[in-house]
């Protein structure tokens, strides 16, 4: 084996295609997250796709190089912030004198509209708190899954060296 593989990088072709596909996958995952209340998908699915993009970069460039660029602490922080947003949104319902998880955004300019029922293209600006919850879940899933894979890759690397 030459130095290239020991560094944990794959061949030029794989790396180039991975770099080209990264923005494509990311924007698609954001599309899935953002349109979660209109089309199939939502926070978890979009987050899993984005985390897969990061996994792809980890595979193509090796986790050592990726660790320098995205630290696991940063990913954990993204996860915590996402979960905290979710809980805060849920609690605002209680503060507004209604119940937990109350959809308090209905009727407001932000996400306030109600989409018509039936076959229609759908309005992005609808659904009340649902898009916000989708974004929060998406943040949590991106951070969580990417951090899990990164941490496990680092731990497994330590094992591999010992052998």
């Amino acid at each position, binding site marked *: *084996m030459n130095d290239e*593989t020991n560094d944990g990088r*794959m*061949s030029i*072709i*794989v790396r180039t*295609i991975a770099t*080209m*596909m990264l923005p*494509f996958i990311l924007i698609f995952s954001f599309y899935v997250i953002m349109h979660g209340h209109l089309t199939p998908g939502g926070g978890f699915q979009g987050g899993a796709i984005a985390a897969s993009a990061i996994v792809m970069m980890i595979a193509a460039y090796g986790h050592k190089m990726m660790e320098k660029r995205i630290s696991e602490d940063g990913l954990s922080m993204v996860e915590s912030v996402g979960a905290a947003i979710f809980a805060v949104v849920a609690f605002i319902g209680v503060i507004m004198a209604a119940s937990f998880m109350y959809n308090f955004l209905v009727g407001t300019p932000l996400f306030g509209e109600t989409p018509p029922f039936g*076959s229609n*293209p759908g309005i992005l600006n609808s659904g009340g708190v649902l898009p916000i919850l989708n974004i929060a879940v998406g943040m949590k899933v991106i951070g969580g899954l990417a951090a899990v894979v990164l941490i496990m890759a680092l731990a497994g690397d330590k094992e591999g060296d010992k052998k």
Partner: protein
Amino acid sequence: MWELIYALLSIGIFFNLLASVGLLRFPDVYTRLHAGTKCTTFGSIFIALAVIAYGLWKWYEGDKTMISLAIHAFFALIAILLTNPTGAHAIARAAYRSGVKPAKAVIDELGGEKND
């Protein structure tokens, strides 16, 4: 219009079936990759084209939202085109590095390079 779709679909399915048969018939990884990559990519392109043609046709007939069927199918096609050959390359390289030598090979210049 249905005739065009039938034609595109049958070409696509023919090549996909061919790919599967090729996978079974060929002797080693590299030749199987030839079948598996080229034919499935080509066949899938035709199937995607059939879907795109269907979408455009329905759009032309007045169903406005059907245009997005065509656009999304187009994106799936681009994704297949980008990823399939790269995946084949990755597998071939991995196979070579993990020690699978090409069967019945008349020449192996890569092995000569690596062994010295």
